[in-house]
């Protein structure tokens, strides 16, 4: 095991000639939770998708998950290497129940305890009513986020990228989700929470906040960064 769950260096990515990520260095050590903030359109979700392996983007640089560069891998290999991405816009899977999906995740995984985690998490997160329902079909915004969190708990990844897992959630749900993320902190994992809001950061201990503007990390610091952004916005920079 290396020191860092996720280590991104010199990462650039774009669509054809249109460069969206313009050289990103970002490291999340094991045991830490980091936040990524930034204005709309700055490239936060693009970063998540480039790490996941979305075929639209051409990427260069390196992204190591526990020391292994995942950039050359196909999407499912990256997941099997320990990367999990909770989507900002989770995709509807008509005709595939959540239970079927987690069963398939179990079949695809080389570890033996996926099923146990699925059962535990279903109970803990009160997911029973959703297991028979089709994934992200007819779910409310908040329910989709819960479904993503549930899949995260089942995957128990080395690196978790949670893209706006707090958007669309009511006050109580934000606290629930934050506590869940906090409870997933451990020495075999690093978490990157992409968010626009300070609110979620109040319920968990964030080790570091990175600010992405126009495809570049312009600032990294402690919780005070989020406080200042909330007061002043991104424009003053």
């Amino acid at each position, binding site marked *: 095991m290396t020191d860092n769950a996720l280590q991104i260096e010199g990462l650039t990515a774009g669509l054809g000639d249109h460069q969206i990520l313009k050289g990103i260095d970002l490291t999340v050590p094991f045991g830490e939770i980091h936040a990524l903030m930034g204005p709309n359109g700055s490239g936060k979700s693009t970063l998540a998708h480039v790490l996941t392996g*979305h075929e639209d983007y051409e990427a260069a640089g390196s992204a190591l998950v526990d020391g292994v560069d995942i950039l050359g891998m196909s*999407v499912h290999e990256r997941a099997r290497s320990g990367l999990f991405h909770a989507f900002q816009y989770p*995709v509807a899977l*008509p005709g595939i129940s959540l239970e079927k999906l987690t069963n398939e*995740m179990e079949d695809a995984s080389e570890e033996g305890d996926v099923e146990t985690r699925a059962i535990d998490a279903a109970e803990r997160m009160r997911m029973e009513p959703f297991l028979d329902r089709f994934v992200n079909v007819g779910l409310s915004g908040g329910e989709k986020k819960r479904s993503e969190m549930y899949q995260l708990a089942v995957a128990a990844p080395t690196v978790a990228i949670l893209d706006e897992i707090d958007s669309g959630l009511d006050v109580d749900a934000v606290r629930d989700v934050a506590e869940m993320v906090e409870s997933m902190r451990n020495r075999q994992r690093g978490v990157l929470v992409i968010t626009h809001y300070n609110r979620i950061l109040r319920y968990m201990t964030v080790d570091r906040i990175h600010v992405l503007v126009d495809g570049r990390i312009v600032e990294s610091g402690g919780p005070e960064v989020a406080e200042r952004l909330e007061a002043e916005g991104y424009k003053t920079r």
Partner: protein
Amino acid sequence: MPSFDHDAVSAAGANDAPWRAATRSAAHDAYLATAMPDESEEIWRYIELGFDLDDYGPALEPGVPLDGDPLLEVSHPAVAGRLVDGYWVGDDVEAAGVTVGSLDRSSSTEPELVESVVTGAGLADRRDRFALAATAFGGDGAFVHIPKGTVAPGVIYLETQATKPGSTSFPRIVIAVDEGGEASIVVHFRSRQEDDLTVVPQIVAALGDNANLSVTVVQNWGYATRALGNTNVVVGRDAALRFAEIGLGGKLARLHLDVRLEGRGSSANIVGAYFGDKEQTLDYRYFMRHIGTNTRSDMFLKGAVEDEARSVFTGMIRIENSGQKTEAFQTNRNLILSDGASAQSVPNLEILANDVRCGHGSTLGPLDAGQRYYLMSRGIGEQQADRLQVHGFFEEALLKLPQPEIAGPVREWISNKFVAAQVAGRV
């Protein structure tokens, strides 16, 4: 092999009740004067028949039955019977007031009832070479009678086999559900993969007032079988029809469905799932006629084609002047899995009444890249992700099957077809 001549007409009609004998020779004359249909007729558009029925003489007696029907056991039928090359084999069965048995026998013992079902469902309107041949050369068949107020004690299972290479057989299933009766019927069409033969299956049903009938046809003909079927149903007041066809087999398999919602408050729920692979042609022509007021219909069909397969769905909802306060919907969604495969999806509405609610939707397209990506982001490999997507696609139809007990094998057969195409590198 016999040919389509007078001797064959006489042989097929050896056990005819008088009402049936009368229709036979007229149909034979019409048959002789009718050519094979071709694409110039709207109802035969989009497909090429590419054969002549005259090359497949009528089956005038049952062949040696195929054994090992994989669907029989899972259906847990209360009553099971078998048609081989159109002929009822075995004894008639009676259970809890329900009779299932030979059409020939019933045509003589209950002539009015059988005649009224057969002639009342509009089958005589089908004047193409296949339907005429069925009337002229069809022998026996199956008759299911659910008397007034009787609820069939479980699934009625009718295995329908074609076994004679080079033949045309005419399996006919006639179903009478009298007032307030209820029945659930599973029909399994089978033939050997290698047997080059033709089948003209016909299902004719009449639902009395307040009757309930569910029929699921699992079409598993072999790859060398051509099937050109008709299903005609008349639905009485406040009666409910559920009909599903699962299209898996056949070199060419066609179903012309004609449902008449005659009684006020009657309804029809039609489900379909079909998967065409290799060079199959699967052809569905569905007609829904709203005649009574306050009638409701819903058609929901999902199909996939791969390699060089083609499929056709044309859906015609016709609401007569008398069909006020009608609701009618049709949905047909198609997955096109290979460049060489094609699907036609042609929904039509013909509305003569003014107070109605109608809708139709039809889509054609490949597997969804966004779903594949999301599934793969969960660690699932690309091929498995596509299998899951195909599973999900059909699940929306299979969950609506009237007999959930048969969904298991059906799901597996569909999945096997897709996996075989993946393994062969075609999708």
